């Protein structure tokens, strides 16, 4: 339970923070801090388990049929990452409070940050790969929101979109990889996958699986050639960069490589793919970082380079290299978060991040400068700081026997070159910013930031020093625990001493320090060289060209298919259905007519059928005379209702009849605002064409219906008939299916009905309609607006009709009726009042706002469904019992009745909403019927 709570707390907290932010910035910050601490508190009781080498698994059944359950897992690796996510998250929360200007919404940033935090926790604490992927995609989405936080800025939107495209595409590849992995192992659970490394490596699908999964991980961790999104993501506010690009988002890819290390590593393919890509990224990032004049740009490329270093370590594939990789994950997270925060302070104080203008800050903010310089020295790998230890381990691994076998001397050489550049860009960060003369033309005069803005940096720098000086006492237990989680096997011996004697690694460190200083000394000619050749290796341009090509292609296809003509679209659709259907039928060898005995045709049915056919044809033939068409289409609907009566479907007949009335009234009202005579604007050729298409469609449907009706079939209805009374407590099977067996469907359908009504309400909002003063034939409307007899009878009938609808509702469970039909009857009874007495009169007596009715109906239906959870049953499980009422006698009451009440209320609410609001339009066009009447009388005189 605790793991689930740890993951869910930030998600729920995001909502709370968004609400708390209305009470001010301090409230938002305290709430966010509280949420993070609460998440830590959930995790704390379990935190000791991974140190003993055990794994915590929490399982909830979700979709067992396809092997997807909500399973959470806490082992060393997961705990390390959860600790980084929560710990650095807490520091970022404190920092962001001081970083953001009062103009920016702090609540929004915190809410997004917490969404992201929850997604990241989900990634690192999940046992099931598919659930992991779900959280993985959530990190892409929430980081999109974070990067585009300043959404009014073009670069922020572009950067966010690029990050989402690249990492999202990687995620798709990874999904495919996970599915393959699941197929190979037969389970999506990590425990099973991590234990079947040999099976996976020997499988035919190993290489595609590996490549697909690595694509996802590389895209997320900004590995070459997908590295280009990371520098553009720097458009985010600095607290976001500090969080996403030190400890979390980009580390997710590295996490996945570490996570699947026991399952996938140990083959030449792994070594060359992971090692090769890591090495290339390491070099590219290190070299590019030196040439960035933007402070955050330098840090972005340095992050790319360090991610490459970690990936390369896992690529080497030895257990010791993996330990070094985990170690560098910890170290990079601490010093890089500190550096990003320092860069944010500098940006905050100077108003720019251009290192060509920021100089000599030592004189303005010596304290911050000291902190930043320690972190930068750790980035360079200076002894007594944490970066030195893991880098030294990296150098040692690069010249170890196994690495030399695989890569030869290329590895140590490349690694040393990267080390040289790392020293050079770290030196630039220190020298260019804090010394190197005076600042040039800064927007504001820098000074030390607020006290508490420095606290997060202080904590991080303290960690850098502690780990660097006392590694064995501080980080070793954590590293052993995390490395155990990665390897899933006993750890190799490793020694976190600062002094290892005169080893090759020490000489490589020395070369890097000296070489880096020399490169920085010779930086000006190098900058000039870079300026001349800038843009040669611009991955972003390639990305944009590809993206533009894709969009252009999509537009061309859309333009070719969609000409903006509804008639054309519909014709294509109907023709496609016709061609597919007819070709299917023609290809079938079985005869058109089946063996089932047909019913005899009686005279009444023949007449009814003829009426339907003639009415439908008349409707079509005279469709321009719209009122006539409306009357004849009403006749068609009536015969359809009669057909339902004849063939044993009383519920359908009642529904069809009431819907028919409502539909015709509605269309009549609408017709008032439309031309009453249709225009003729199709040529003869088009009429003939449409006539042929329609005829073909009709013939094909007739043939299809005939061939089905003359064949026997197997029904699944026996189950419903057998269980209707014992299981659902009702003898009207149709109603029991609606409110019980298939209650979930019905719930969806009343939701659709409610949405349609709300949509219509929106369409009618502020609608200006022109009302005609005369009918088609130039006659004025009849002055007697509301005939007395109709008005009187309608009022008299209302209580009666309502009683009928209650009766229909109550008996619905056992006899034809139910919520749908009763709702329609109630609606009709009320609409009658509007028709007979006028909108104004009725509106004074009935509330025209039926939104609450719809909401109540949906609410009741939902609560009925949820209530079954209380009893431990699935959604919408029904129950019923028999009560003995005095006078009424034996009376059955079922929970499905409450659900049906919800249906009833939604139907009444939606139907009334639709009709009343159109009726109100009429009233607007005739603001005062009495005045209109007098006007007409005057005219006559």
């Amino acid at each position: 339970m605790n793991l689930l709570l740890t993951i869910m707390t930030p998600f729920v907290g995001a909502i709370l923070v968004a609400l708390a932010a209305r009470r001010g910035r301090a409230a938002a910050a305290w709430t966010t801090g509280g949420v993070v601490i609460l998440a830590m508190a959930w995790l704390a009781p379990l935190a000791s388990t991974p140190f003993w080498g055990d794994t915590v698994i929490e399982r909830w059944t979700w979709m067992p049929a396809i092997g997807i359950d909500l399973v959470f897992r806490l082992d060393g690796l997961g705990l390390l990452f959860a600790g980084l996510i929560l710990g650095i998250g807490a520091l970022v929360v404190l920092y962001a409070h001081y970083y953001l200007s009062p103009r920016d919404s702090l609540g929004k940033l915190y809410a997004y940050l917490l969404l992201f935090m929850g997604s990241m926790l989900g990634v690192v604490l999940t046992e099931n790969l598919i659930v992991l992927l779900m959280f993985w995609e959530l990190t892409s989405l929430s980081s999109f929101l974070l990067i585009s936080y300043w959404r009014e800025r073009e670069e922020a939107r572009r950067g966010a979109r690029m990050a989402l495209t690249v990492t999202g595409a990687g995620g798709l590849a990874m999904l495919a990889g996970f599915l393959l992995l699941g197929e190979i192992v037969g389970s999506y659970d990590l425990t099973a996958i991590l234990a079947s490394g040999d099976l996976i490596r020997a499988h035919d699908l190993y290489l595609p699986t590996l490549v697909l999964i690595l694509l996802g991980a590389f895209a997320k961790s900004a590995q070459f050639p997908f590295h280009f999104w990371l520098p553009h993501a720097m458009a985010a506010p600095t607290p976001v960069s500090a969080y996403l690009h030190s400890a979390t988002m980009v580390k997710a890819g590295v996490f996945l490589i570490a996570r699947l290390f026991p399952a996938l590593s140990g083959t030449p393919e792994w070594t060359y793919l992971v090692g090769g890509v890591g090495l290339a990224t390491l070099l590219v990032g290190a070299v590019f970082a030196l040439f960035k004049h933007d402070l955050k740009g330098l840090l972005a490329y340095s992050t790319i380079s360090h991610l490459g270093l970690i990936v390369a370590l896992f690529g080497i594939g030895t257990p010791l290299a993996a330990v070094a990789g985990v170690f560098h994950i910890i170290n990079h997270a601490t010093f890089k978060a500190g550096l990003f925060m320092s860069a944010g302070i500098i940006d905050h104080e100077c108003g720019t991040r251009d290192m060509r203008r920021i100089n000599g800050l030592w004189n303005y903010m010596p304290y911050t400068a000291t902190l930043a310089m320690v972190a930068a020295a750790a980035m360079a790998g200076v002894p007594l700081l944490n970066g030195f230890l893991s880098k030294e381990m990296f150098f040692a691994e690069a010249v170890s026997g196994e690495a030399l076998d695989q890569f030869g001397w290329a590895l140590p050489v490349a690694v040393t070159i990267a080390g040289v550049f790392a020293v050079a860009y770290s030196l630039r960060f220190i020298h260019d910013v804090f010394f190197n003369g005076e600042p040039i033309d800064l927007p504001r005069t820098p000074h030390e930031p607020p006290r508490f803005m420095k606290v997060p940096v202080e904590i991080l720098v303290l960690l850098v020093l502690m780990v660097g000086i006392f590694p064995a006492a501080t980080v070793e237990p954590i590293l052993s625990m995390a490395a155990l989680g990665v390897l899933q096997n006993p750890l190799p011996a490793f020694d976190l001493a600062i002094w290892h004697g005169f080893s090759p690694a020490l000489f490589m460190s020395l070369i890097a320090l000296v070489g880096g200083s020399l490169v920085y000394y010779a930086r000006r000619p190098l900058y000039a060289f870079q300026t001349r050749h800038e843009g040669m290796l611009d991955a972003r341009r390639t990305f944009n060209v590809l993206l533009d090509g894709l969009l252009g292609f999509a537009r061309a296809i859309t333009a070719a298919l969609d000409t903006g003509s509804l008639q054309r679209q519909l014709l294509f659709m109907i023709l496609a259905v016709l061609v597919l259907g007819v070709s299917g039928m023609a290809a079938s060898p079985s005869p058109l007519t089946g063996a089932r005995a047909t019913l005899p045709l009686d005279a009444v049915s023949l007449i009814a059928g003829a009426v339907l056919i003639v009415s439908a044809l008349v409707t079509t033939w005279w469709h321009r005379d719209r009122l006539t068409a409306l009357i004849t289409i009403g006749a068609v609907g009536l015969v359809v209702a009669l057909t339902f009566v004849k063939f044993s479907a009383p519920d359908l007949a009642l529904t069809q009849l009431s819907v028919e009335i409502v539909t015709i009234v509605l269309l009549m009202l609408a017709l008032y605002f439309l031309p009453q005579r249709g225009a003729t604007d199709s040529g003869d050729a088009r009429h003939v064409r449409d006539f042929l298409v329609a005829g073909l469609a009709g013939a094909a449907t007739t043939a299809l219906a005939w061939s089905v009706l003359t064949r026997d079939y197997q029904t699944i209805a026996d189950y419903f008939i057998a269980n209707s009374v014992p299981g659902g407590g009702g003898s009207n099977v149709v109603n029991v299916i609606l409110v019980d067996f298939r209650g979930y469907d019905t719930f969806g359908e009343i939701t659709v009905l409610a949405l349609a009504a709300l949509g219509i309400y929106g369409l009618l909002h502020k609608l200006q309609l022109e009302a005609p003063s005369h009918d088609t034939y130039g006659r004025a409307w009849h002055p007697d607006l509301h005939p007395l007899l109709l008005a009187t009878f309608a009022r008299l009938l209302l209580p009666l009709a309502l009683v009928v609808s209650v009766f229909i509702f109550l008996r619905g469970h056992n006899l034809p009726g139910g919520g749908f039909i009763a709702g329609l009857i109630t609606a009709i009874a009320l609409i009658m009042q509007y028709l007979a007495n006028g909108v104004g009169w009725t509106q004074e007596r009935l509330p025209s706002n039926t939104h609450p009715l719809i909401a109540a109906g949906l609410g009741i239906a939902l609560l009925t469904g949820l209530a079954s959870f209380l009893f431990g049953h699935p959604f919408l499980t029904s129950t019923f019992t028999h009560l003995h009422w005095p006078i009424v006698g034996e009376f059955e009451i079922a929970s499905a009745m409450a659900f049906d009440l919800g249906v009833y209320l939604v139907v009444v609410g939606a139907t009334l909403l639709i009709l009343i609001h159109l009726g109100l339009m009429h009233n607007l066009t005739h603001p005062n019927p009495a005045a209109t009447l007098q006007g007409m009388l005057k005219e006559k005189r």
Partner: protein
Amino acid sequence: MEAMISLMIGVLTATGVYLVLRARTFPVVLGLTLLSYGVNLFLFAMGRLRVGAPAVIGSGDSYADPLPQALVLTAIVIGFAMTAFTIMLALRARAELGNDHVDGRG
């Protein structure tokens, strides 16, 4: 009887298709209504035709198939919502564009 029903479904489909292909909004709405009738009858007929055997337990020895009936019942109500939505869309389009052509060109 089956032939009669098949023919009814066919005619409803044909007239519906013809009207749906018209260029003005009102006939398109009429066409959609006719098509819905046809589709509802077709779905209902998939339970085959039974006379005098409503699916009410205790009313007889055997019952008509209740499942297509339940499907069609909600389809009728949703069909009404769809018709209402389309006609309101047509009203809105006429108010905004000044004509009742389906593509909004006068």
